[in-house]
């Protein structure tokens, strides 16, 4: 337990100490929020779909969490190259504790970044709907963070250096984001896209978060809860497994 705690604290310290990183990782979500949110707002309203900023904001919050969570996992590569990983791997604690501490810390950081983006969305004009599921929004945000910290950990454990990094961004993270329903509604899509959406773990997180905030579910609350919870547990397990196999 003490190892989980201290490694988690380490991630948080590193986070609050690098304002450049905090601000830097806000850039992309803000860009999407402004360009798409305001750019497509009129069209969305004309199509009779209501307020696009309201629809988009949960997607943008999910995006911020997704990127930060995956990066936190990939930080393992950085720690491997700059040596700190060795220090934790020779310590007399189980690798499971080490990786859980890392994932938890990374997830908290991603969650906090999500909250910051959420506040920015509020400033941009996002309004919550009085929904009975509102408290669940926090739950979904944190689950998205944990889930993708797990995925990031898998890649961080397997990759030896940063060469594969652009590959992960362009062929994993970007598709996960674009085919998640963060930007558009899940209904009335071409068949292939609809299937992609259904296979994408983030879709359920986005749907759950959007449902909790503005009471608009595409898959339904129960489906979102079950899928997100199970997938998160599964990926934490997979992440731990891959981390435990690291050899120096």
């Amino acid at each position: 337990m003490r190892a989980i705690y201290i490694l988690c604290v380490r991630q948080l310290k590193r986070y609050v100490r690098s304002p450049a990183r905090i601000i830097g990782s806000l850039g992309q979500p803000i860009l999407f929020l402004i360009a798409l949110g305001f750019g497509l707002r009129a069209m969305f309203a004309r199509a009779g779909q209501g307020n696009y900023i309201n629809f988009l904001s949960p997607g943008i919050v999910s995006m911020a969490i997704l990127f930060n969570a995956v990066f936190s996992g990939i930080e393992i590569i950085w720690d491997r190259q700059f040596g700190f990983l060795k220090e934790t791997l020779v310590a007399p604690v189980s690798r499971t504790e080490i990786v859980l501490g890392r994932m938890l810390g990374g997830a908290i950081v991603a969650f906090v970044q999500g909250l910051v983006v959420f506040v920015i969305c509020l400033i941009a004009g996002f309004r919550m709907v009085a929904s009975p599921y509102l408290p669940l929004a926090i739950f979904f945000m944190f689950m998205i963070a944990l889930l993708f910290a797990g995925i990031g950990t898998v890649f961080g454990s397997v990759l030896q250096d940063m060469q594969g990094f652009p590959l992960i961004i362009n062929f994993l993270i970007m598709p996960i984001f674009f085919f998640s329903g963060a930007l558009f509604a899940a209904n009335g899509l071409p068949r292939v896209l609809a299937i992609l959406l259904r296979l994408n773990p983030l879709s359920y997180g986005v749907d759950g978060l959007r449902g909790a905030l503005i009471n608009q579910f595409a898959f339904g609350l129960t489906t979102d809860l079950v899928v997100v919870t199970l997938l998160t547990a599964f990926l934490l397990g997979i992440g731990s497994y891959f981390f435990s196999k690291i050899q120096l």
Partner: protein
Amino acid sequence: MADMILVQDLVKNYGDFCAVKQISFTVPEGKIFGFLGPNGAGKTTTIKMLTTVLDPTSGKILVNGYDPTRDQKQVRRSFGIVFQDPSLDDELTAYENLDLHGVLYGVPHGERKKRIEMLIDFVGLGDRKKNFVKEFSGGMKRRLEVARALLHKPRILFLDEPTVGLDPQTRNHIWGYIQQLSKDENVTVFFTTHYMEEADRVANEVAVIDHGTIVAQSTPAALKEKTACATLEDAFIALTGHAIRAEEANATDRMRMMGRAWRGGGRR
């Protein structure tokens, strides 16, 4: 006297390449053991296997009586290590790095505080303990790593080229302390170095490894006698030849370069 480290027919293959070829040696408790060899001879690979972070292909290892492939926790509790490459968290302060180590090793709070203060003063970083490690020079980082390796009072100390980049003052200071530790508390020391004069001075026994095979093992004096050389450096060259070894840049070196470029020609 019990053997603190026992290695029997240890082999490590990377694909077709055999990094360590059936080596055997023992290190008795309380001895200072120098593990010498040219670049790429298999020193670091051996240390990695002894310290549980790399699985051997075959052979037997016992560290403090435990098997690093099975009783990892007991082995890890037994040793402290200074790695060849830096292994500190640059974004934490000197104190925080040591504190994190103490927590990971289960050193109780009160004792942890006392030992951190004592060791950080010992390596001459007492007034810099609240500074971030990224502000430290290579030598200061090294000293901090030595302090960290001693924090949990290990029975064995692994030092993989611990004195690289240190000035003679610091080198003497640290070796003095380690010799004292070995004498007073019977701590076993296993170290590698390229400074033969240093090995000659501090090691009770040395082993010379080349191309994955141990080519000689004895006291430094016996080694000089056997090769009829005046210094250990000459004896070393007599044993391993004059050829300069090529060592490929590994992923770590490439990343360090990238990291340096990334951080705008950073401090390391």
